[in-house]
């Protein structure tokens, strides 16, 4: 369904049609895994199937089912053309929502980005915290590259401790950054097992100068990824991160960095059919 995200859901007329809604999603291996609230909507929509490729349910403000729809999504029929897939999805969405009326959405609401966040604990108003990772991919057959993958992970006290200002160069195992690094893979490659079999390598952490207010360190090295998928995909990634500290402090203030990689994608027979360039932009929050 990553191709649906990158083609049909991001098709501009589909985005506009979904503007009035609060959008949410649930995914799992089978419908038996559904949490009770999703199950209640699924049952109320009278979708009776142990597996659903994709189900769409519109609810009113009180959480009652208004409409449901099982779109027929068939990328090969459109030669994986995102425009044609988008147009076909919009046609089905129009069919689903025909006759329903929604409140107007303000321009301000349309412009707001709702990106994945980890919120700081113990604060009155939710504040983004942790590290946000944006993954971009070169063009590939499944169209998922057309929309960045965005993940947010916590910046733990243990990681902050590890990344304290280095008074001299030192080496550290990539395991220290595992929560960040285990996000760095393309969609549609895990084929079922999910997760990383191994993340290995060592990084060099070096003091890297100062200005009037801040001092810096660099964290650089090559990371070797091994996916826990059927083909046991392996790929190296070159990581470069700038760590920023107040001049009088050793505690980490913020993080900006990149990881570059070329990920081989294999067919079920184990032959590499394409190599997907992956770039990760890493930033700590708040900015």
């Amino acid at each position, binding site marked *: 369904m990553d191709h649906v995200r990158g083609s049909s859901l991001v098709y501009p007329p589909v985005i506009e049609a979904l503007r009035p809604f609060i959008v949410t999603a649930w995914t799992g291996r089978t419908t038996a895994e559904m949490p009770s609230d999703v199950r209640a909507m699924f049952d109320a929509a009278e979708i009776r199937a142990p597996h659903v490729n994709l189900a769409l349910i519109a609810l009113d403000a009180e959480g009652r089912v208004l409409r449901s729809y099982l779109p027929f999504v068939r990328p090969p029929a459109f030669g994986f053309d995102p425009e044609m897939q988008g147009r076909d999805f919009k046609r089905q969405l129009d069919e689903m929502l025909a006759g329903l009326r929604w409140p107007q959405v303000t321009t301000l609401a349309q412009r707001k980005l709702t990106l994945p966040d980890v919120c700081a604990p113990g604060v009155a108003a939710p504040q983004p915290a942790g590290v946000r990772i944006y993954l971009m991919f070169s063009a590939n057959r499944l169209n998922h590259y057309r929309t960045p993958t965005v993940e947010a992970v916590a910046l733990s006290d243990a990681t902050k401790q590890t990344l304290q200002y280095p008074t001299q160069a030192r080496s550290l195992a990539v395991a220290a950054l595992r929560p960040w690094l285990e996000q760095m893979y393309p969609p549609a490659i895990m084929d079922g097992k999910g997760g990383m079999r191994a993340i290995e390598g060592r990084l060099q952490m070096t003091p890297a100068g100062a200005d009037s207010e801040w001092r810096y360190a660099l964290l650089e090295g090559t990371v070797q990824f091994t996916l826990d998928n059927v083909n046991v995909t392996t790929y190296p990634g070159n990581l470069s991160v700038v760590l920023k500290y107040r001049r009088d402090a050793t505690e980490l203030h913020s993080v900006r*960095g990149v990881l570059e990689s070329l990920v081989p994608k294999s067919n079920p027979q184990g032959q590499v059919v394409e190599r997907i360039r992956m770039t990760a932009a890493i930033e700590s929050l708040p900015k």
Partner: protein
Amino acid sequence: MTRQCLTVFASMLIASAHAHDAQAQDARVQTVLRAFENAKPTEKSLTFYTLDWATNLAEAKERARKESRPIFLLINTNITAGTSFYQGHT
């Protein structure tokens, strides 16, 4: 005198080497920060995230009641790897 000059000259050489190191490291910081800015997606490429996302149905329902808004729920099951529509990973 000669000895003092040599000491001063040696100190200048060491200081110069340190300054050169610091400048080189600072340049690398700038290079990585530029790479980050180039890699970060543009607002246009994040159009998908201009949809009003809630991270789960409970949050969506709570907000829908407060804001008098409808909810659009996507459901996907896949025995091998389901798609997280919000984040994008399979």
